[in-house]
């Protein structure tokens, strides 16, 4: 009896420990991601995880060129803009079907848009539509002209709208599916994309499979599974042993180990972000009529609470730019996972001015400028240090300390100020700071989403500021507004380049870094291209 039991036990143990099921079925890609999704309605989410799943299920009228934020046709084959720039007519692709068999047409497009802006729409109640008010405020309505033509009507010309149309928010959803599931449609996504939704086991995985009736060639992958592995060390180990074939967000400390492993490949691209230190130039305005635009007659400049005499002088701000060794900060504190920044937007964007020469690390010249400005012995200044780490600012306290020691070398004493993150954002928006560490991650990939939001004079409104240096130059704002109103890309780019020159000369910001996006795949996984907007498109991926 006992020996029988022992044999059974031995057999069970043997079975359990035998290496089965570890090898992946070819055509199935399991991707280890850091978190689960919050929902699967493209218009009703803001978190990266949800967006990255839906990028493979849904499509919009336009889409990004591989690895960039330039747009190309997708469900719309072509479009024309009216002379005044307020109407865009889209011609839709014919013969496309949703995963549930519904035909893609103008009704589906109007449905996907109208449910977000029309409060009387029967499906408006099923979502918060958080991005609509923020990115599509200039859209008045979407109209059907015929079955395969729609017209987008804008309240005023907005050149960034075409980039915004490549956002997940305005992906086209199946109206039949929405009708069938109503408030539960977010659990049963149905689009026109290369992969179909199969199942979502909460906190564990989401399974998609290839759409056999895709209007382009069928995807090479048969199955695409997003598996949640929240711990970055565990994620890398799962990749090493082959439980998953790709992962996101590896620990910077593990990068050397990844590079040394021939079985893995590391993909690195600059991210759509910028980390900086802003110096309060002293003046902002109160946005009395809350329209987000400074009315020059009725909204005069007033001192910000953080007004500090030395920082109002351009020479001082330039001196601070010269006194900080940015390359060393990037190498040692970003641990090589970022590139040094010289402008306020990422280098791959339309209108990036590469001709600008960055302030070199030159403490001697910094001292000269300080003396010229009347501060040969320096001064004491307060720096707001972020309490949280962000992709654009890995370790704010250490970066703060580095800046402190660089500025001490030219005679400037830096004191730190730290509060919780919510209060931090509130206080800096009110202009309480003298200097602060902050940054930005872009939303849609359009330069306006950096330049106007962060550096425009209109963004100097005390209490809701996005321009944390309170750089109130109106000529610069005119350039940015003109850029938003023109659809000619060359002209737009020229406006932004000029604006960056002015911002560089004024030196209100010390631009530190653009941090990279890192992803790791098994070496036999090919075709994945990192998109600057951190969206994951698995359609071109092939397992060799």
């Amino acid at each position, binding site marked *: 009896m006992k020996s029988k039991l022992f044999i059974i036990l031995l057999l069970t143990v043997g079975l359990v420990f035998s290496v089965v099921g*570890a090898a992946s079925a070819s055509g199935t890609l399991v991707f280890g991601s850091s978190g689960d999704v919050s929902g699967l309605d493209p218009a009703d989410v803001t978190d990266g995880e949800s967006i990255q799943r839906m990028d493979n299920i849904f499509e919009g009228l336009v889409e990004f060129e591989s690895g960039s934020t330039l747009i190309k046709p997708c469900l719309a084959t072509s479009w024309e803009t009216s002379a005044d720039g307020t109407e865009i007519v889209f011609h839709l692709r014919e013969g496309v079907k949703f995963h549930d068999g519904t035909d893609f047409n103008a009704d589906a497009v109007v449905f996907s848009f109208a449910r977000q802006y029309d409060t009387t729409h029967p499906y408006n109640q099923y979502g918060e539509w958080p991005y609509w*008010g923020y990115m599509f405020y200039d859209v008045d309505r979407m109209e059907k002209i015929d079955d395969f033509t729609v017209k987008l009507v804008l309240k005023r010309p907005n050149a960034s709208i075409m980039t915004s149309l490549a956002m997940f928010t305005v992906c086209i959803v199946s109206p039949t599916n929405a009708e069938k599931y109503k408030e539960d449609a977010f659990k049963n996504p149905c689009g026109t994309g290369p992969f179909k939704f199969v199942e979502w086991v909460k906190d*564990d995985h989401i399974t998609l499979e290839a759409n056999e009736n895709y209007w382009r060639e069928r995807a090479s992958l048969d199955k695409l599974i997003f598996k949640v592995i929240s711990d970055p060390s565990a994620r890398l180990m*799962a990749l090493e042993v082959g439980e998953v074939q790709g992962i996101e967000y590896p620990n910077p400390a593990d990068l050397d180990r990844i590079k040394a492993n021939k079985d893995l490949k590391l993909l690195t691209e600059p991210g759509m972000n910028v980390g900086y230190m802003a110096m309060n130039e002293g003046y902002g305005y109160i946005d009395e009529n809350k329209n987000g635009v400074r009315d020059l007659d009725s909204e005069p400049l007033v001192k910000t609470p953080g007004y500090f005499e030395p920082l109002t002088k351009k020479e001082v701000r330039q001196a601070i730019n010269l006194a900080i060794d940015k390359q060393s900060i990037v190498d040692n504190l970003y641990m090589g996972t970022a590139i040094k920044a010289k402008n306020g937007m990422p280098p791959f964007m339309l209108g990036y001015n590469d001709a600008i020469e960055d302030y070199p690390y030159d403490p001697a010249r910094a001292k000269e400028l300080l003396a010229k400005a009347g501060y040969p012995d320096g001064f004491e200044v307060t720096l707001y240090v972020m309490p949280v780490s962000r992709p654009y600012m890995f370790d704010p306290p250490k970066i703060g300390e580095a800046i402190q020691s660089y500025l001490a070398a030219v005679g400037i004493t830096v004191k730190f100020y730290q509060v919780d993150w919510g209060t931090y954002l509130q206080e800096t928006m009110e202009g309480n700071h003298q200097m602060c560490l902050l940054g930005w991650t872009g939303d849609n990939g359009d330069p306006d989403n950096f330049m106007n939001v962060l550096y425009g004079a209109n963004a100097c409104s005390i209490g809701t500021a996005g321009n944390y240096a309170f750089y109130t130059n109106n000529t610069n704002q005119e350039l940015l507004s003109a850029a938003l109103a023109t659809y000619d890309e060359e002209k737009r780019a020229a406006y932004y380049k000029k604006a960056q020159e002015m911002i560089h000369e004024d030196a209100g910001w010390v631009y530190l870094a653009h941090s990279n996006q890192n992803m790791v795949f098994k070496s036999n996984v090919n075709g994945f291209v990192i998109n600057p907007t951190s969206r994951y498109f698995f359609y071109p991926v092939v397992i060799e």
Partner: protein
Amino acid sequence: MKWYITKRLFMLIPVLLGVSILAFSLIRLAPGDPAVTIAGQHASPQVISAIREKYGLNKPLTTQYWIWLKQVLHGDLGRSIVSNEFVAKEILERFPNTIELTMLSMFFAIIAGCIAGIISASRQYSIFDYSIMGLALFGVSLPVFWLGIMLMMIFGVWLRWLPISGRISMMISFQRITGFYLLDSLITGNLAAFISSLRYLILPSIALSTIPMATIARVTRSSMLEVLRQDFIRTERAKGLSERMVIYKHAVRNAMIPVITVIGLNFGLLLAGAILTETVFSWPGIGRYVVNGVTMRDYPVVQGCVLFFASMFVIVNLITDIVYVYIDPRIHYG
């Protein structure tokens, strides 16, 4: 006995009421706003206030509490702010995962802990005794997340014996019925799924079992030592019973009462300890659910889970008290 159980169940009410007030106020004391979390940092104030209104977050705190309490009394834990799903449903969906993990851990802990404690006590001051007690001390002090990573490193990456994270292999198609994977795979006769889910269970269960295992070993040892010094043991030995019989037949049974108390208490602690283990091993249980709820400031989720954990804890303690009667017939409840 019936009267005793009814009395104990009634005592649940004030306990849970207290817990509900604590759960409700603690998460609200933490900085952060669920409306902002859902809407994203760039959202317009209108969107944020609309969300606040929809979920009643703009009402006074006492009103919010009453509304929630009334819901709970109707058996409704409310809807998650983030996912818009019913919290009770979400908890029940994840509960089998946590229970399966906890049960297996407890099984490991009881078997290994009791055996180690008994042997230690019967060979007091031997090298075996010292090393077991040293190990037990080590076990209580080990941080679970570190141990988890080490287990993955050794058994997953180096030896490649066991999988690293998740609930079951992604390559196995599998039908969920009760949510208990081992049970479901047996019901459907899916041997591959049974083995796979068992393989995925082992490392997290071991990581989770170390602390209770160590506690159980120490309590068993001291309780055994006490019993072994008593008169009836001397009588047994004098009667000429073999040492084996003395220990396993007579001493162990008498030494079990404190051990059962510890097991009961630890079962509750295990449910809570599962939070860390589930995070390290990406286990889709209630622990992960509550952690996500806290980071997203999803008030109904956190409140619901805390209430649920507290009820489980109280119920497990009650069961422990009932088990005493069967172990020691001298115990009566009036």
